[in-house]
């Protein structure tokens, strides 16, 4: 039956196309008349509907209908009155402050910490012993106009210095799913990198982030992201940056020394689970990068595979939830290290799980490991010499939140990444006041 109709439809279309040639002028005229009939019929129906719409609108314009309808003693809710005009400060940006207070106890002197085989940028050091104020952050953000959003985050260091952590503008209305960001920002590579350190589940960065990215890669540059018009999530991004952030150094290539790209996808598994997978690539040039007097010129490439899995019963994370994530880093460094040619293949990974076992209480564990490459003969006993060690660390975490605005965390690490093993204990509070920005996944 339906096949017959399809056939007839096909024949109909063909016959319409070839009507003139086939001399079916009569048919064509009849067809035209029929279409005209249909059109006038339709116009009449649309007119009728428009009249009904007007009637409905007129009816709904009478404010009494809603108030009078329910015959109950309690007054019916009225539509909102226009809000009172607000002064000039209504356009103030959202301002929020993050405070970190830390107590640290280390078996070995943290100021002498190294990872043999991996020259560490100054940013990748350990916390000071005893009580200290971690970086305090002040964040200002707002929509600048209908096309641009702006974000500025200062970090006030323990030494009383002010650093610009991020300062960028970002488009909000480019067509086709594109977003362009410019300024100083954290690179979109990896999973942790783009999240602010105070939003990380653990207090510090895992070993691969310390060794390959000096905890977190932030630099000045441009980022273009594109989110695909697919039913599932697929996003790609590309970045070009100045080349001042480790592993780059010296703003090589006329101040465009670092390129990066990433592709990520993710979705839900039923109502309780969701996941994210990401592949990232970084290519960073160094021109006379200086780490504690060791000079490197050349280039670093880094590939990162990231996986994140989150679970909460029925997707309701309030009471219990689980977050598991892991990342694998593949790095290659090629060039001249203190004038000696090097070509080093190094890698590292971490895996961690954090479980909220009751409201406001979380516990977690993390394992991280680095795989170094042997240094050339001329570089024995420099920072590139791994001294035959294979650095790894295992950490445990306990967290209590008094509310979603304040977190109290205890963390213990058995750190085997240095020249000898180290017992490390960190306690930290992280509080946020002011508007609390929504978290990334």
């Amino acid at each position, binding site marked *: 039956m339906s096949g017959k109709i399809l056939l007839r439809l096909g024949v109909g279309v063909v016959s319409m196309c070839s009507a003139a040639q086939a001399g079916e002028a009569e048919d064509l005229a009849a067809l035209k008349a029929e279409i005209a009939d249909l059109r006038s019929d339709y116009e009449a129906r649309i007119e009728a509907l428009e009249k009904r*719409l007007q009637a409905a609108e007129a009816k709904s314009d009478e404010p009494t209908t809603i108030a009078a309808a329910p015959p109950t003693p309690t007054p019916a*809710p009225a*539509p909102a009155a226009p809000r009172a005009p607000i002064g000039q400060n209504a356009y103030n940006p959202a301002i929020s402050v993050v405070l970190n207070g830390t107590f640290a106890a280390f078996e070995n002197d943290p100021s002498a910490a190294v990872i043999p085989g991996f020259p560490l940028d100054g940013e990748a050091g350990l916390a000071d012993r005893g009580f200290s104020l971690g970086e305090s952050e002040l964040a200002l953000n707002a929509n600048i106009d209908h096309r641009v959003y702006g974000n500025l985050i200062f970090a006030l260091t323990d030494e009383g210095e002010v650093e610009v952590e991020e300062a960028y503008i970002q488009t909000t209305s480019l067509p086709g799913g594109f977003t362009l960001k410019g300024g100083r920002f954290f690179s979109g590579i990896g999973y942790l990198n783009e999240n602010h350190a105070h939003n990380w589940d653990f207090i510090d960065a895992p070993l691969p982030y310390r060794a390959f990215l000096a905890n977190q890669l932030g630099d000045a540059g441009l980022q273009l992201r594109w989110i695909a*018009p697919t039913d599932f999530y697929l996003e790609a991004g590309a970045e070009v940056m100045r080349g001042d952030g480790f592993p780059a150094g010296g703003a090589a290539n006329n101040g465009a020394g670092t390129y990066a790209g990433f592709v990520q996808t993710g979705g839900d598994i039923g109502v309780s689970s969701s996941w994210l997978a990401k592949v990232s690539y970084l290519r960073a040039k160094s021109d006379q990068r200086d780490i504690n007097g060791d000079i490197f010129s050349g280039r670093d490439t880094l590939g990162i595979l990231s996986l994140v899995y989150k679970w909460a019963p029925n997707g309701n994370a309030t009471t219990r939830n689980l977050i598991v994530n892991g990342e694998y880093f593949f790095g290659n460094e090629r060039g001249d290290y203190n004038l000696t040619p090097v070509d080093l293949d190094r890698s590292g990974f971490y895996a961690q799980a954090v479980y909220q076992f009751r409201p406001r209480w979380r516990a977690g564990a993390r394992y991280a490991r680095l795989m170094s490459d042997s240094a050339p003969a001329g570089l024995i006993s420099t920072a590139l010499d791994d001294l035959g060690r294979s650095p790894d660390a295992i950490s445990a975490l306990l967290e209590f939140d008094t509310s979603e605005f304040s977190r109290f965390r205890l963390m213990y690490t058995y750190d085997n990444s240095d020249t000898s093993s180290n017992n490390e204990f960190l306690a930290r509070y992280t509080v946020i006041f002011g508007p*609390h920005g929504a978290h*990334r996944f």
Partner: protein
Amino acid sequence: MRKILALSLLFSAVALPAHAALKVFACEPEWAALSTEIGGKLVNVYAATTGGQDPHQIQARPSLIAKARAADIAVCTGAELEIAWMPQVVRQSANSKIQPGADGYFEATSVISLLEAPAALDRAQGDLHAYGNPHIQTDPRNILIVARALAAKFSALDPANAASYAAGYADFETRWTAALKKWEAEAAPLRGVPIAVQHRSWVYMIQWLGLREIIALEPKPGIPPTSGYLAEVLETLKKQPVKMIIRAAYEDPRSSEFIAPRAGAPAVMLPFTIGGTEDAKDLFSLYDETIGLMTKAAAQ
């Protein structure tokens, strides 16, 4: 044959607007259902959350970002209910149509006079909502006000189908007004009944049905109770007994189930939104179920 040819032309003419269906990203199930009531087949609706989830605390998941990317309109409660996730979803979606302030961003609370707007904002008072209590869907009269505004919004975004949205609204209004009469009649025994609430999310329903809220099981909004506070609650409930302790389906049942036997009142889990309980399947059965559960508890 000519008739069939004419029909096929007509079909292609009608099919075109059907393909251009408005893609609706609804933050909560009640707005997803309302969008379908008004738009029918002209809208393609995605509900971002379920009745089992706390709409305050949702992850900005990849799946939500993908759906927001494709949306023509986001229909949300607003008034900061979704502040912990929606701004991130909208920004990452890179969809200019649904950015706050754009034509395709609709907040249901924008057309309702909100109750409990705090005079002063201080987080020492708990997790306050600056613009007032956002849980407007607990009073079905609000649904009708939102429906009207939403129909107008759909018409503005899709003028070609304005008549259909108006017709959808008119039909919904008729059915809803009749249902309201029924619910109010059924809920008559609830007038003046004292209740305790686990979280203060019921203020609109309490006002609608004339219930009396004696106490909340949270010391402050969003702050879970300590055992000391629950002891105080029990003291209060001894002096002022209540008929039931109500909570939303997504809430941790422990505090109301701890109090209920000690206070001699049943703990009643209400759907709160569509999908909160098995029988709350659509907007109409949501209130059927809510009133049914409460009148049953009050009669005990």
